[in-house]
């Protein structure tokens, strides 16, 4: 009797990954993403942020290793953001989708690399989502580009996975004593929102509300992916997603992040959900082309596995560094630590010219704008970069080498203020490191007292 040979786990995974699925949910993701980034770019222009954030500063707090990324002249910088908006519309309409998404990712990443003090987790998410759209095959659903109407299953899982990474690591980041045992920073922030929400009023001033929101927020982030994956709970989970993000948008200034998550999370629904919705609205059956089996193989699955591993390692890399990432910020970038800490800082630099013995004090605004200086006062890596800019400033002024030390104080998550940077360390002589690999914070940043390890 002939027995059919078991194809093996890897082969089954490869098959499942390349199984054709209706391209409608990916199309909905693409349209929502394109429209949101187009709106976001136009909003950036309309608010004058291109001028204020990119062109006005005399110096930028660059990412180590990316000092070569500079803003373009005014006309070209404005043009760049207009082009990003147009690329967003191309993505939404499905015009040369993959090329448009690739160009958008490169252009958007360029603007974000100009100044590290502008870093936001959701900008990082937008960059990654654009890269996914550049990689995912075009389905032809609701797009100018033609396609077979299907996408390989891995496309849907990649987008879901990207969203899952955001939620899960945002949840893991909340598993610390500050958040769970002391309900900070919620306990600090919510009472300040009482006047912004007249209907809530004094409710937000109750400690139990801060605790409830802290725990609910952590539980939401940690479990929502599971609820979204389970078909029976999916509609309720999505309602919770909407409620959660609307609440955070009302309570906190988080820009478009909430809308991005609300608009993109439906990718967890059945891949045909937009089509079914359309049927209900029009009572007509949109036709899609017959599903052809997409090409692909083990290489694609291997690449996806490598990306998945990377997506786990990057947010956790802070564990390789000494100290608490919330305090040192070493390993902060790309770690999905969203709306997690309250910091207020104060920073001055003391300059020593060893050649003359002169010592004097300068404010970071010598080289930074006010908004850059505010970020440098609470983020050690930016303070280090600012110190190097100050040293460069005096080097240009004719002093061969100066030493730069910081008088730096930060109040963190309700703790009494404490020194952030070691005042005895010459920051100008301390290497800035390379972004993913840390900046040697343990040689610059004083320990957080009392230490709370996440």
């Amino acid at each position: 009797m002939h027995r059919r040979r078991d194809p093996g786990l890897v082969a089954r995974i490869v098959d499942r990954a390349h199984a054709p699925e209706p391209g409608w949910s990916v199309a909905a993701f693409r349209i929502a993403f394109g429209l949101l980034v187009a709106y976001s770019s136009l909003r950036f222009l309309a608010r004058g942020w291109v001028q204020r954030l990119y062109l006005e500063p005399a110096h930028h707090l660059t990412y180590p290793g990316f000092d070569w990324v500079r803003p373009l002249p005014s006309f070209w910088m404005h043009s760049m953001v207009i082009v990003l908006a147009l690329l967003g519309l191309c993505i939404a309409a499905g015009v040369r989708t993959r090329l448009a998404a690739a160009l958008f990712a490169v252009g958007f990443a360029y603007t974000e690399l100009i100044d590290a003090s502008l870093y936001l987790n959701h900008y990082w998410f937008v960059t990654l989502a654009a890269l996914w759209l550049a990689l995912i095959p075009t389905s032809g659903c609701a797009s100018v580009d033609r396609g077979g109407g299907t996408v390989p299953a891995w496309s849907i899982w990649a987008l879901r996975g990207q969203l899952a990474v955001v939620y899960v690591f945002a949840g893991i980041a909340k598993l610390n004593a500050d958040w769970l045992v002391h309900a900070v920073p919620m306990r600090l922030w919510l009472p300040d929102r009482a006047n912004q929400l007249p209907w809530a009023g004094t409710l937000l001033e109750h400690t139990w509300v801060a605790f409830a929101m802290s725990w609910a927020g952590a539980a939401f982030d940690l479990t929502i992916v599971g609820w979204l994956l389970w078909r029976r709970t999916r509609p309720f989970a999505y309602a919770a997603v909407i409620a959660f993000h609307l609440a955070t948008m009302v309570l906190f200034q988080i820009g478009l992040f909430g809308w991005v998550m609300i608009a993109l999370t439906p990718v967890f629904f059945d891949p045909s959900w937009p089509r079914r919705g359309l049927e209900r609205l029009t009572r007509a059956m949109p036709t899609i082309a017959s599903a052809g089996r997409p090409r692909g193989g083990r290489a694609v699955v291997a690449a996806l596995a490598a990306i998945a591993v990377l997506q786990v390692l990057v947010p956790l890399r802070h564990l390789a560094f000494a100290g608490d990432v919330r305090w040192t910020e070493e390993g902060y970038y790309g770690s999905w630590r969203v709306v997690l800490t309250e910091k207020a800082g104060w920073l001055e630099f003391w300059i020593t010219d060893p050649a003359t013995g002169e010592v004097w004090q300068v404010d970071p605004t010598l080289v930074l704008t006010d908004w850059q200086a505010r970020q440098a006062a609470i983020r050690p890596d930016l303070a280090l970069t600012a110190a190097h800019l100050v040293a460069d400033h005096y080097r240009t002024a004719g002093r061969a080498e100066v030493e730069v030390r910081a008088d730096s104080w930060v109040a963190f998550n309700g703790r009494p203020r404490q020194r952030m940077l070691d005042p005895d360390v010459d920051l100008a002589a301390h290497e800035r490191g390379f972004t993913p690999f840390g900046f040697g914070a343990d040689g610059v940043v004083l320990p957080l007292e009392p230490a709370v390890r996440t």
Partner: protein
Amino acid sequence: VNRVARSPRLTVALLIPALLAAACSGGGDSKRTDTMESLAGSYVVPMYGELAGATASLQTSVEALCTAPSADALASAQQELRDARGTWKRTEAMRIGPDMTRRSAEKIDWPIDTSRIDELLASDEPPELTVEVIGTQMSSALRGLGAVEHVLFADGAAEAVQQPRTCDYLVSTATVAAGEAQAVNDAWHTDQGETPAFGDTFTGADDASTVDMVLDDLVNEALNLTERMTDLELRVVKGVDGPDAPPSDPIDVDLLASIHEGPAGLGVVDDLDRLQGLRIVFVDGLGPLLGTDLLDRVRGEIDAATAAFEALGDVPLREAAEQQTAQVRAAYDAVKALQITLSTDVVSKLGVTVGFSDSDGDSAG
């Protein structure tokens, strides 16, 4: 099927009363609004009333001095000047609202140019120094409480006030300051055209969210004040080798000019009044929002700074900086400690900077 269909309805039925109850319990003024109402009602608004009264008294006393010059009348006018200046300095910690939008300092107290004032009084141009001329045609460097001090405390002031032109100048300058202080006081109480009374803005009477903007301004103004006191005016005693290092020995006397002090030598008194203003704002007024630990710390730091200035005695600040450098440095350090606490702990506690990043935030860090 029925159970499934009913459960959302049941959930909604349970949820609505719960939400209504929550919303109702959330009604009323927030603690922040209550605190700001108390700060305005008990301290800030009365302070501006006091300023209007003190400058009006100064105007009356210089009019009396010019009508019947005497040593007593001069002493009385000098005392009224001290009182008006003290009140003005106390408002520095709460200088938001009408006096900022009206740029009142340009009429009430502005750094003066003593040589130009002397030239003005010695010349006959313009021929009349009326309230109109002083208020609308003169530079800010030629009017305000500093100008009145310059005349009242000058050597030979008793003789000078017998000169009609000097008296006209004195009365007009005091009248302009008093008129402006009264206008500021009015703007706190009554609508100014389409602009609502600032007292209502301060307490969020029309729009609860204005309370937060006012609080932001208040804290930022206090930060500016402490910065002026330390890094600008007292930089002469700043450490020369680091934040904790001692000042140069001897001090750089050229930097003494940074201390704005007239012939009355009121620099120390000015700083004590400013600290009193900070105490009113952050201890008496905003104390309930700070919590016990932070309030105690802020109070202790203001106490320490006050004690350090009081220890200097009844001497001009410039003289103290030269002759009691270590003690003035102690006062500097005490104000600096307060400045850092306000910039970090207080700002954090009051949520003044929880604006995340300036573009689109996702982290306060």
